Structures are given as C-alpha cells and as structure tokens.
C-alpha cells in the first residue's frame, strides 16, 4: 500500500500539459524526491497532492482513499513552501500554532507541541520573535516546524532550500534528513538540484516535460539511467551513439573498433552508450580494462580535488575524463584511456531526440 499514489494523472494549463500521465507511488516513511529542470511539472504534481490543483485526468490516492475531490484543509498533508509563506502578522509561536488552533487543540497542548517542534527544528525559545527578525535559514525552520506540528502523514516540500546560501543549504539538507528520520514522516521533496536529490532521497522520480522519465534509488538513477535525459541531467556523462553488433558488442559510429558492453536481456538496435567521466581511466600505460583506446589530450581543466581531461579518441570523438590532479599529463600528449564494460550503460535512443 502506498501512502501517496498517482495513477495516470494529467494537468493542463490552457494548451500546456504541465503534468502528462504521471503515475507513481510513495511508500510510508520514505524520502521521495521529484527531480527535474524548472517547468518539468514537479511543482504542479506536488500541488496536486496538496490539493491546490485539481487533476484533469487520473486518480490521486492518499492512503488508499481517492482524494481528487478532498479540499486541502481536509487532507492530512503538510506543506513547506518555496517562498515560505509564513504569516507576517504573527509571531513564530502563532505561526506554528496556527494549524493546531484550526484543529481546536487545547491551549496547554498547543504550547507543549509548539515548543517541542521548535526544539525539533533547533530553534528553542524563538516563539516570541517576529518573522522578519529571523534569518532565511531560521525562517525555513519555522516553515518546517509549522508544517510538522500537526504530525501530517505526508510532508510536501517545494524546493524549500532554494533561496538559501550554499553552506546553510548543505547544513539544512542534513537537518531535514535528521528530522525525517526522527519523526518518521513521509517526505515528498521537489528540487531541481540533482546533488540534493541524490544525497537525501530514498527514491527519486526524474521528471521532464511533465512526464516521469525514471523512478529509482539515487544509485539506480545515477548508475543505470534509462533515458538520455536522465543520464544528461544527473551528473555529467559521455554519450557514444551507435548500435549493437551481432555478437553483443556495441558498434560506435565514430570509432573504428567496437566497444565491449554488458549484454542485456534485450538487444536493442539503435542506442547510446553512456559512460560517466569518473569511470574512465587515463594514462599511457593503461592495461587490463575491457575497453582501451589510444587518445590525444586536448584540454585539461583543474578543479581542485580533480581535473577534467578532454581526450580525443578515434578521429573526432572527445571524451571527458575525471582524473586525479597528480596524473602526469599535458595538452597534446599521446596517452590511453579505458573503462570496464560494467561501468557503462546502453540507453535506447529516444526517437524524438
């Protein structure tokens, strides 16, 4: 049973289809992310779950109950807004207490639970402050406390860390993960930041143009991307276009020799080989790898903890390689690059692409 389930949900705004036949299921106590570029429909999907948008087609289920018609204030769903949406005319205490007051919880109980949730988000004793007296990170915590205090079964977070500085953002990522573990609520998290999604999520739905491209754990998404979009959007990658040969090897259009790949159950015809830069090795004495190519160093970009080497193999195919900065290479050097076949993924070529 899913805590939140979308079945074939469609949402149109005028002629634009914002959410295009999305189906997915979120399990209890899961940290689930919707990841995609802006305009991919991730926020609209979240707003459908919250009840701020009505789906044009399809079914939304909250714990097995069809929820399409349930108004937001009757769903047991909390929401942390991208631009916080804290009530400016109320104190921190009153902001957090709002949901409890609406639920007609007793005064003493409210006080107790507000203080507990301030504790939870690391702001004990901040109840009397005004919203504008808080820093961005503190306001964000109040937003989380406000949404959490009613102990909703699902907490929706719409890019809540977007407006924060990098350092605070990284800190808040860990905090969110800690809060989620501590209270065990189902989190649905919308973000365009792939790093954020990879670090925090149990499962990720990668979205593009209103459709779900791939659903999987961060590792599955990163290591076994199923579409070119996913491979490209999450991390960096090298694409080699080609097709399967008769004995299971991958024949790349721009390389003279075939590439050894893991042969899947289905041998698709046209495809794209995706290989992450950090999975490619480089060095003049390279040996013992499934694929080895002579290469010429075209460019080296220093990035502190590593260098990105651009190396040309074959006649005109440039590969990006992430290497140790200590690697003794200079632009123009003749060298070798290589990778094992388990480090690469063959993706079916998207017909439209």
């Amino acid at each position, binding site marked *: 049973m899913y805590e939140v389930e979308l079945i074939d949900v469609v949402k149109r705004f005028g002629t634009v289809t914002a959410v295009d036949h999305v189906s997915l299921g979120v399990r209890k106590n899961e940290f689930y992310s919707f990841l995609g570029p802006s305009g991919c429909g991730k926020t609209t999907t979240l707003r459908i779950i919250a009840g701020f948008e009505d789906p044009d087609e399809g079914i939304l289920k909250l714990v097995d109950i069809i929820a399409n018609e349930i108004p937001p204030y009757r769903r047991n769903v909390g929401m942390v807004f991208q631009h916080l949406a*804290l009530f400016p005319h109320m104190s921190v205490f009153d902001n957090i207490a709002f949901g409890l007051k609406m639920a007609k919880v007793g005064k003493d109980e409210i006080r107790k639970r507000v203080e507990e949730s301030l504790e939870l988000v690391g702001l004990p004793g901040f109840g009397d402050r005004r919203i504008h007296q808080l820093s961005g990170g503190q306001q964000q915590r109040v937003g989380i406390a406000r949404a959490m205090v009613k102990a909703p079964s699902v907490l929706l977070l719409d890019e809540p860390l977007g407006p924060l500085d990098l350092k605070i953002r990284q800190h808040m990522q860990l905090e969110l993960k800690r809060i989620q573990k501590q209270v065990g609520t189902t989190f649905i998290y919308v973000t365009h930041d792939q790093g954020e999604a990879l670090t925090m999520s149990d499962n990720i739905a990668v979205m593009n143009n209103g459709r779900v491209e791939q659903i999987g754990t961060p590792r599955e998404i990163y290591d076994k991307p199923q579409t070119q979009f996913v491979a490209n959007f999450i991390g960096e990658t090298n694409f080699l276009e080609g097709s399967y040969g008769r004995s299971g090897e991958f024949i790349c259009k721009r390389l003279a020799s075939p590439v050894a790949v893991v042969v899947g159950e289905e041998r698709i015809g046209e495809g794209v080989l995706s290989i992450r830069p950090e999975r490619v090795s480089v060095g003049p004495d390279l040996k013992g790898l499934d694929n080895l190519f002579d290469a010429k160093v075209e460019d080296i970009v220093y990035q502190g903890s590593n260098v990105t080497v651009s190396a040309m193999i074959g006649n005109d195919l440039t590969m990006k390689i992430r290497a140790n900065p200590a690697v003794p290479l200079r632009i123009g050097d003749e060298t070798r690059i290589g990778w094992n076949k388990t480090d690469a993924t063959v993706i079916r070529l998207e017909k439209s692409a």
Partner: protein
Amino acid sequence: MIYLGVFFFAPFVIVLLYAFGMVDLLRQFEPIPTLEHFLQFFDSVAPSVFARSLLMAFATTVLCLLLGYPMSYYIAVKGGRRKETLMLLVIIPFWVSFLLRTYALMTILDVNGIINVTLLSFGLISEPLNLMYNMQAVLLGMVYNYLPFMILPLYASMEKLDKSLLEAAGSLGAGPARSFLHVTLPLTRSGVGAGSILVFVPAVGEFIIPQLLGGTESFMIGNLIWTLFLKARNLWFGSAVSIILIALVVLMVALYMKYITRGEEMTI
C-alpha cells in the same frame, strides 16, 4: 512648499483669526480675541448638524467598505487577466467631473427620471416615487462618489497579499472562511484603514451632494459652513464651525489610525 504655504497654510491662518474674532474687514467692531464664536456653536443648530454629518459620513464609510471589500477582493484575487480592465472600470468615473456625475444621478432619481419613467411605463407604480431630496438619496450619491476611494487602497493591499499564504492556511486546516478571518483580513487592515479615512474625511465635509440631492433633513456641516460664509456673511461663526470640524476630524482620524495600526499583533 510655496504651494502649501499659499493655498493651505495661509487660508487656514485667516480662518483661525476670524474664528477668534481678530479680523474685521468692515471695521464694525474692534478686533479683540474672543471665544464667543465658539460658544455660539453650542447655542445654534450646529451640534445637531454635526451629529448628522458624522452619522452620514460613518454610514457612507461602512457602506463603501461593505461594497468595496468584496469588489476589490474579487478583482485582486480572482481577477486574473481581467484585473486591469476591471480596475479601469472602477477608475473611469473619475474622468468625468464630480459635479457632472452627481447631476447624472439626479436625472436617474428625478420625478421624471429614468427609474420613475420605467416603473410607471411598466405599470408597477401609479405615482412617481419620491427618490430625491431625502437622506437616502444623499447617501446613495455619497457612496457612489466615494466608492473608488475605498476600492483603490483596498485593492492595493490585496494585490500585495501573497496568495501562497492562503494556500498555507489551507494546508494547515483552515477552510475558506477561517483563512479569510485569520489571514486575509488582518493583512488587508492597512487598506481598510486608508480607504476608510479617504472616504470618511471628505464625506464629513461634503456639501455638493446634500445640496443637489438632499432636502432640509439632510443639511450637513458643509452646507452650514457654506451658508454661514456665503449667505449669512457671518465669517466669524463660519470660521469657528470650520475649526471645530477640522479639530474633530483630525481627532477621529488619529484615534482610528491608532486602532488600525495597533501592535499589528493578532491573537487567534
């Protein structure tokens, strides 16, 4: 500053001097500072006229608020693409002179006006209705003329209202009515305050509308001052009445502002 000095401050000082009996252009008596014109106030019709004016202005403000609030709410929140058009419709009457608009209202309410002619021709009434020269007509004219002054600041405060606050209230379990009560209303209070003052202050001193649409029962301070200055030529008493009016309005506005901006805190 010069503009203010010449057209606001100087006349005010002259009126003040008159009120205390310190000016006499016709040299009928020695200009000596006196309070007699202020004391005369209490022995005249003035207090009852004041009471009526305040009541009328108050009624106008309340009616404008009751009409204007839902209108501005609708335009700002639900207006969508038609927002600009709807606001233009609110403002368009301003393009026509105030006087002209009031005369236009007369042609509608008159014994031979549109309403009476229509009702008579449909046989709904046998005698023309007396729609003019009473309190209701004055009130109608005032509400009609002052409504935009209420809508503009209300609209501005609602436009500023972050719609995601209403969604937040919804996700916290507040239905539409309680979202309105706990979020929309407190956050548009400044608009309510500004609009009320913009309507109330000129409405207290209004004299053209009661002059044109009203009868003797709707004689207001504005009419009293006008009569004292231009008909009775009692500049001293007229000035005293004006000063009392100004003082009263300033006092009321100050109290109201204090009430509206009080703490900004709200306990549910």
